[in-house]
């Protein structure tokens, strides 16, 4: 009797337990019911599972509900009910504040990355983008325009829109679009200029991630154009010595009086080409003659500086040429080649010291370089002389060897003739 009752209880309990278990498994497999529908929708409402799984927020355990509210563990309209706290689509104007809910909360962000900054929203409010948005401009950039949405990647990921290699392209999406930028009265050729610049070459071609992109000079979340009086401060973050020399040069006051932006006046802003010696002096490509005219002190100083740099450049090239010739002839000139690096360093230093716009100051570095180049040139010439000496020695030795071989041949013939 007891046995049959037990069997009956098992028969009833088993389907019940199985149903509960399957339900639990189904729930565990589908914790985010939002994706069930949204992966099947058309853009812009589409968010696929694959897309969301790449998102840094999803990887850190956040769900759709973290931003949109609702209850993704429920299905259909229950998940998107007001009762479940569903907030619906987030308006563009509300995006920065929404992101800031977490990203400005240092206590909250610390659990993910203690060194992550939390001043982005504060900076954004000071940016041109933030200020215009505060005035009601809906077209200016908000967080999602640069960082993306639903498939947001960390900035260190090379696929991220805000990775150093991609930032210029991201900014250009709006700033190079003349139609979109209509009404803002700023040029739209910055990206084209930047792509032709020495900075872009360093970053994109040479892969130097420390090379500047848009945000390096303009700021990222607090993006704004640097003012005329502070532009050299921006450049000086990297070009320290040039900036120091400029600060103590006569150009500092003169540029300020004429409202000329420091570095940009000669080097341009976005289209910064590789500086050449032709930019110095009074030749056709000179930037000095943009302001200075024949007869004034600056014109004379420009000519003198160009001559100094040219003299050192020629001396270094001559020394390099003679050392290379000696080296390709197999002469050991590694010490001189090492010294030659110092001569090249002096040339680079002289090209930096021209930012003092003072020929006496430039001459100090030029003299150091000339001294080293003169020494290495002498060593190269001595090596070539030694090469010629060796070749003469070889010629004499070969003559002696040929004479001995001929002598031996004659001697062998003589003794063999005698014996036969």
């Amino acid at each position, binding site marked *: 009797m007891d046995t049959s009752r037990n069997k009956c209880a098992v028969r009833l309990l088993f389907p019940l337990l199985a149903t509960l278990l399957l339900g639990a498994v189904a729930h565990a497999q589908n914790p985010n019911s939002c994706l069930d529908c949204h992966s099947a929708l058309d853009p812009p409402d589409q968010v696929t599972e694959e897309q969301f799984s790449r998102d840094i927020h999803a990887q850190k355990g956040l769900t759709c509900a973290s931003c949109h509210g609702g209850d993704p563990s429920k299905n259909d309209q229950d998940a998107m009910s007001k009762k479940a706290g569903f907030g619906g689509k987030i308006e563009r104007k509300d995006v920065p504040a929404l992101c800031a809910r977490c990203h400005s909360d240092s206590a909250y962000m610390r659990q993910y990355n203690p060194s992550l900054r939390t001043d982005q929203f504060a900076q954004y409010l000071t940016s041109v983008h933030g200020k215009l948005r505060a005035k009601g401009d809906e077209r200016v950039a908000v967080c999602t325009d640069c960082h993306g949405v639903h498939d947001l990647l960390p900035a260190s990921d090379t696929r991220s829109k805000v990775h150093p290699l991609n930032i210029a392209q991201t900014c250009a999406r709006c700033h190079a679009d003349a139609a979109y930028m209509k009404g803002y009265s700023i040029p739209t050729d910055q990206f084209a200029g930047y792509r032709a610049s020495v900075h872009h070459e360093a970053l994109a071609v040479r892969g130097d991630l420390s090379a500047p992109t848009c945000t390096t000079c303009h700021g990222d979340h607090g993006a704004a154009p640097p003012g005329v009086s502070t532009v050299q401060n921006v450049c000086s973050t990297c070009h320290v010595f040039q900036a120091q020399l400029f600060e103590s040069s006569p150009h500092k006051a003169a540029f300020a009086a004429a409202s000329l932006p420091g570095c940009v006046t000669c080097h341009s802003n976005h289209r910064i080409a590789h500086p050449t010696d032709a930019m110095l002096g009074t030749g056709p490509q000179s930037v000095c003659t943009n302001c200075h005219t024949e007869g004034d002190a600056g014109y004379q100083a420009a000519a003198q500086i160009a001559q100094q740099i040219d003299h050192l450049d020629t001396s270094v090239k001559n020394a390099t040429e003679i050392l290379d010739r000696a080296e390709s002839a*197999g*002469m*050991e000139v*590694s*010490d001189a080649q090492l010294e030659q690096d110092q001569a090249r360093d002096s040339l680079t230093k002289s090209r930096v010291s021209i930012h003092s716009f003072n020929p006496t100051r430039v001459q100090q570095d030029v003299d150091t370089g000339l001294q080293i180049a003169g020494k290495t040139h002498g060593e190269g010439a001595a090596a070539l002389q030694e090469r010629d000496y*060796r*070749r003469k*020695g*070889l010629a004499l*030795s*070969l003559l002696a*060897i*040929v004479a*001995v*071989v001929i002598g*031996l*041949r004659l*001697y*062998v013939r003589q*003794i*063999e003739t005698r014996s036969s």
Partner: protein
Amino acid sequence: MLAGVRKWLDERFDWAALMAPLRKKTVPVHKLSYWYFLGGITLFLFGIQVCTGILLLLYYRPSSNEAFESVQYIMTRVPFGWLVRSIHSWAANLMIFTAFCHMFSVLFLRAYRKPRELTWVSGMILLFLVMGFGFSGYLLPWNTLAFFATKVGTDIAGQVPLIGKSLMIFLRGGEEVTGATLTRFFGFHVAVLPGITTLLILVHLALIQRLGMSVPPSVEAQRTVRSEQSREMHFFPNFLLRELMAWYIALGVLGALAALSPRGLGTKADPFASAPAGIRPEWYFMFMFQTLKLIPAKVWRLDGEVIGILLFGAAGVIWTLLPFLERNGKGRSQRWILGAGIFALAYMASMTVYGYLAK
């Protein structure tokens, strides 16, 4: 004066009797006699190596801190140091080249056959020793190329089954190529290898003296057909003077190479730097290096590099024992050996060229 010295020596040591075997020794004369000079030229280059090596020893310092600088000092400051180092380096390459030529000439003229099997074996061991000189000497200037080539070379030695790891540690004096490797290679290069080589050269020369020089079977057959008498010349002075001419010509070639293309030094080895692109061994190891590069990483279930090393090891042993594999008077085995010789020469040459052309 020379006669006076001879008389003096004769009175004390019976010089004439001592020199009698040399006077009696003859060298066969035929259309292929010039191949006989190769062994002598190799011996001459070995002598050059000993002399220039001793001169280099006066200044060379075998430590990782000083080796590069000492070679640089030899090349720039020591009078004619550049010439001594260049000659040492070029003569090493020429010696290995002439040793290979000598080996192949002996093979193709079938001079290895009975009764000269041991002459061939001693010659083959000498060839391996000469390559050992090249490998150990290459590291001594302690420059970047030499450092990484030694690293690769000893890595390959480490792949030898069973004893590989121990062999690599023995060669390197530790797990990595360091100053200990340099000191060790210096020891091999200036003491161990010269000692063994000198002894083996004496054995090789004694065997040649005892067994005489081989006349190629093709020349003997022609003489039999034409009923010609065999022609011979005295070793002393006739052949020796001709050999001397060959030595002088070799000296001229050596001097020209040293003066017109002195060996460079490169940059000092930095064990912490990454290996530069295009690291490759000296030309005489290139055919093996290139073969190992071409073998797939896995052949069936076995490591490709291990298979390559085992094949080269087996080929080296078979090559050394070649005279014992030729059955006397059997044309088939002779043709087999000749074919193997042509294949080996073509393979080595083509793989070497391929190794230099391949990126």
